């Protein structure tokens, strides 16, 4: 076979793909660069740069309703020392913490039932049923809860029919948690179901053969091997609840405001971009700390085992 015939065959194959052409693609470094650069540029311009700019803006100034480059710490001190921000921070952490605990307490037994009690068919159905709400119309579902819980809503209409006066269901901590659990429960359950399904069944059988009752199996086999998944569930639930805007807006009418509400209000009321950015950056720092804590908790046991060896 001559070199020429090889070239002909190669170019015959290449007739399909004019770009980037055979010589270009032949070089080992070109293909990864051609694949990688668009992704890199896209994420840099539309994700990384906005976040970096957000940090920069926190040091800028607003003069006569115009944003001007500067380096002042005024925005930071004003926001961090304002009681509105501090109250909202404490409130948001308390709310997100409550959601995290509730989500874990509800999702764990439910995921356990799906992973260990249902047969394969029913389990697949349950998983499909959980994936749908993760990606569909959270805002609409919160609006639906508003209809259900409102003073003239479905539950109160039912309650009124049996002579119970209108209950103030909407606008309190309970309705807020209903909204946030609508957001967090499907994801929390999915993480736990997948983690539980991944547990080595022979371990469980071994424990049972050695005479362990179910409660001991859960405590000594299932829980320890789920440690990373539980940490992931907790951090994900916290992250979602902490940053959510819709539930606080529609379930409590923004009172008391959470940090997300505060951001939108600060942007809307005049051009206080720098201050809104300070709140945003503070939230990101807070979330990074929570993620770090989650990682640390997930690694805790493995690290200790390593140390013992």
């Amino acid at each position: 076979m001559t070199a020429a015939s090889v070239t002909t065959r190669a170019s015959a194959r290449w007739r399909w793909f004019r770009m980037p052409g055979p010589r270009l693609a032949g070089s080992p470094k070109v293909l990864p660069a051609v694949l990688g650069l668009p992704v890199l540029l896209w994420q840099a311009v539309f994700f990384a740069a906005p976040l970096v700019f957000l940090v920069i803006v926190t040091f800028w100034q607003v003069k006569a309703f115009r944003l001007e480059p500067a380096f002042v710490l005024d925005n930071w001190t004003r926001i961090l020392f304002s009681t509105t921000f501090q109250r909202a921070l404490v409130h948001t952490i308390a709310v997100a913490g409550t959601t995290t605990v509730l989500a874990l307490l509800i999702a764990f037994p439910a995921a356990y039932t799906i992973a260990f009690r249902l047969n394969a068919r029913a389990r697949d159905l349950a998983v499909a049923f959980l994936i749908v709400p993760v990606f569909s119309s959270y805002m609409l579902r919160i609006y639906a809860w508003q209809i259900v819980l409102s003073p003239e809503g479905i539950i109160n209409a039912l309650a009124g029919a049996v002579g119970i006066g209108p209950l103030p269901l909407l606008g309190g901590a309970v309705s807020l948690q209903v909204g946030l659990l609508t957001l967090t429960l499907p994801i929390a359950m999915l993480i736990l179901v997948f983690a539980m399904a991944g547990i080595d069944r022979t371990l469980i059988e071994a424990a049972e053969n050695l005479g362990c009752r179910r409660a001991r199996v859960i405590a000594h086999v299932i829980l320890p091997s789920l440690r990373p998944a539980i940490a992931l569930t907790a951090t994900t639930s916290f992250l979602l609840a902490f940053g959510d805007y819709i539930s606080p807006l529609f379930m409590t009418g923004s009172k008391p405001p959470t940090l997300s509400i505060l951001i939108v209000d600060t942007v809307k009321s005049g051009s206080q971009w720098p201050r809104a950015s300070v709140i945003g950056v503070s939230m990101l720092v807070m979330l990074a700390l929570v993620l770090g804590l989650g990682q640390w908790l997930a690694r805790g046991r493995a690290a200790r085992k390593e140390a013992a060896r």
Partner: protein
Amino acid sequence: MNRTLATRLSRLAQYGLLGALFVFLATPMLVIVVFSFDANRFPTIPWGGFSLEWHRAILADPMIRDAFLNSVLVGLGTAVLATALGFAAAYLDFRYRFRLKLPFILLVAVPPAVPATILGMAMLAFLSRIGLFGRLETVMACHVAIATSFAMAIIRLRLNDLSRDLEPAAWNLGASPLSALIHVVLPFCRPALIASFFLSAAVSFDEFLIAWFVGGVHETLPVRILNLLQGQVNPKINAIGAVVLVISVALVLLAQRFTGVRAGRRPNPDPGE
């Protein structure tokens, strides 16, 4: 005897909790769909009787029609671009080792984890300074930045099942890396590509905060709903809601149909590891 009774009660409690939870998750969706056919202006019981009035009303509303069209355009663009970029990122992660790989993968993976309020504000602040505020293309570009994460995850999972020897075999037979990519890897990834197309469309179709921040006058459907929700009680909301819900559920179900996600059959089923 006592113990079996306890076991039975425990099982009953387990199934009871699971059932209650599924009712909790299904209720809001059912409420939206059922009350979109209600003749009453305010959605409550007793039901006011079956009516297509509100569905007809949204068809006649030009703002809703425009918003729907915008959503479809943004969703389609996002689906195509996010799938392409997600495939590129997943394939790079699968095939190559390079410096700063972890930061690169994180740059693609992290966006959905940032609260949309913060991300939307940051995108608005930055993109308006480079003259991209208030365009439909910008909404799409921002949605791509988020949806690529999901696309990469789905395609990367599929690549896990691709034998590492298949591509080198193609190279030995004279295929260039690009030709092996197109004739070997792409066909193998087809189900995952289709799944990520539908899922990216669903992500875009439901996103409202970023679209609200950067879209300006170009409202997508969820933004239109958000604006309607902040006004008076409007019976059209249920009708639009039902339409949006049916579309996004259909997109997610289609995506699932092609991923074949099943608990307990994949070698490493924990998405967190």
